[in-house]
């Protein structure tokens, strides 16, 4: 099976204002290296879980893939088409096939529009349906996400967080896309609601034949929904592979630290040492030289400080970006 989405060497940097004086003096503008040379592939019908801590660039990556933030360089191939090179008209057609579900259900719905208007907008925009057919399709979509017809004429502020997220999901799916970026779709919700929404996403994926890029910082959620997992640190992917392999037997020291941070009842019995990460995520404006993880890595040596680590394949699917893998094994 070939990949539905292939991303290669995607780069997205942001210029941040450096003030007038440095600019006049010709100093280089500081740049936030949000996404720095990311490659990944997602096969049709699968879910790639993208995990990383706040500020590592996961959301930027998701938005750059959809060209909501224009990538600086790299290629994005969707079903064989290079998305980056598309002109406005072709991109608009492409947007029917690639959609996004947002993190914050309170900010992602226009407060001045009714649910029916929010769901009808994409259909009108792409001229998919009009009149009674449009209304029928809106109602069908509402039913698919577990809302009823009477909700259609209400405004977003009349709904709970979970219901709003259902509306956001309905909006993303109403054009029948093939690929959906789920950008932390449950992080803003109560734990009791999270399970409902995750189940809904799983059911819709089956019913609509969807492919997900599922972005989250919650390892339990990622483990539940993903077929493959990619671990992101400071704008780069440090480890990727099948969900079971990466989460059960993490290789990269960062992935190990993440796994080790998940509270488990049986850790004491297994006698695993807990790995603690020290310090904060370094500034993406001035990332560390060599391996970006070395200041916080327990295994870092001279080479880590000097040269960026290579990509190493553990097997056909599982790859790690580290100098010391697989030699270093505690």
């Amino acid at each position, binding site marked *: 099976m070939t990949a539905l989405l292939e991303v290669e060497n995607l780069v997205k940097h942001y210029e941040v204002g450096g003030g007038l004086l440095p600019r006049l003096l010709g100093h280089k503008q500081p740049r936030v290296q949000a996404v720095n040379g990311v490659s990944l592939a997602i096969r049709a019908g699968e879910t790639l879980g993208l995990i990383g801590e706040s500020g590592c660039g996961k959301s930027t990556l998701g*938005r750059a893939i*959809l060209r*909501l933030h224009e990538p600086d360089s790299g290629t994005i191939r969707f079903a064989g088409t290079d998305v980056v090179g598309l002109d406005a008209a072709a*991109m*608009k*057609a492409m*947007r*029917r096939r*690639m*959609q*996004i579900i*947002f*993190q*914050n259900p309170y*900010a*992602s*719905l*226009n*407060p*001045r*529009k009714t649910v029916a208007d929010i769901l009808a*907008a*994409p259909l009108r*925009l*792409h001229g998919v349906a009009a009149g009674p057919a449009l209304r029928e399709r809106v109602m069908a979509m509402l039913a698919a996400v577990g809302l009823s017809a009477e909700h259609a004429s209400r405004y977003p*502020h009349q709904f709970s967080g979970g219901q709003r997220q259902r509306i*956001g999901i309905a*909006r*993303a799916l109403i*054009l029948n896309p093939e690929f959906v970026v789920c950008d932390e779709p449950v992080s803003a919700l109560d734990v009791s609601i999270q399970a409902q929404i995750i189940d809904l996403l799983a059911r819709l994926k089956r019913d609509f034949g969807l492919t997900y890029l599922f972005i989250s910082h919650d390892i339990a959620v990622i483990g539940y929904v993903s077929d493959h997992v990619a671990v992101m640190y400071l704008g780069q992917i440090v480890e990727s592979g099948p969900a079971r392999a990466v989460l059960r037997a993490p290789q990269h020291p960062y992935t190990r630290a993440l796994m080790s941070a998940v509270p488990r009842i049986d850790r004491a019995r297994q006698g695993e040492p807990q790995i603690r990460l020290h310090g904060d995520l370094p500034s993406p404006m001035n990332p560390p030289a060599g391996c970006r993880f070395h200041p916080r890595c327990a295994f870092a040596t001279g080479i880590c400080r000097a040269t960026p680590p290579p990509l190493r394949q553990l097997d056909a699917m599982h790859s790690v970006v580290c100098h010391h893998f697989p030699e270093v094994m505690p």
Partner: protein
Amino acid sequence: MISRLGKLLPDKLARLAGLGVLAFIVMAAFAPLIAPQDPAATDLFRRLQPPAWLDEGDWAFPLGCDALGRDILSRIIFGARVSIFIGVVVVLLATVIGVMAGLAAGYLRGATDRLISGLVDVLLGFPYLIFAVGLMAMMGPGVLNMVLALAYKEWVVPCRLVRGETLAARETEYVEAARAMGASSLSIMVGEILPNILSPVIVVGTVRIAQVIILEASLSFLGLGVQPPTASWGSMVADGRAFILDAWWVSTFPGLAILLLVLCINVASQAVRDALDPRFHD
């Protein structure tokens, strides 16, 4: 008790002010029916006749007469037409232009923003009245020219407001969702952002009407506004200036009319703000 009073009072006051504004509008609309005299009819025998309650007063001319023997009350009633017309038309015109420019600058950013914001900064550099006086001097007096002269600079106010609100709104996820749908910039500006930033625009607009009325009066006072014999509050104040010690009523009553209308609009705009704030609903 005090706090309850404090809650009720602004509300009652705002309603009262709203009624006041309404009364001024009705007065302007039905001026020919309400005015006791012809506002342009001169009668030199009644030159500087005092208000009715003073000696030599006459209840047919309740607020007295000006230097040409014209009834001051009737001229105030007809003058309301000019003031309200100019206030409303200038602000409407300025709001339409300002909203379009502000949306474009705030959403499109880049060169469009630099051009519009640069123009706004240049216009802000001129004192309002001097700018309007200069334009009036070039174009000549008259109601239409006054509307243009005031609107030339007035649009800056809604433009800056809308640009700021748009800058905030364009980063919201519902705008991003619309872009992910493939919506055009125009449909995002008009369909997604505009409905969400309209309430502050309306509130500022109501306050600015009062400001423009004062400016109109100032221009008319300087003789650049409405031309005689059409009555305008500003020119009436100017007419009475020469007799202020002998016949205070000529300047005072039109001045009070300006004060009262501007006060009513300002207080009533608070009620408009409350009405548009969703936190006060359901």
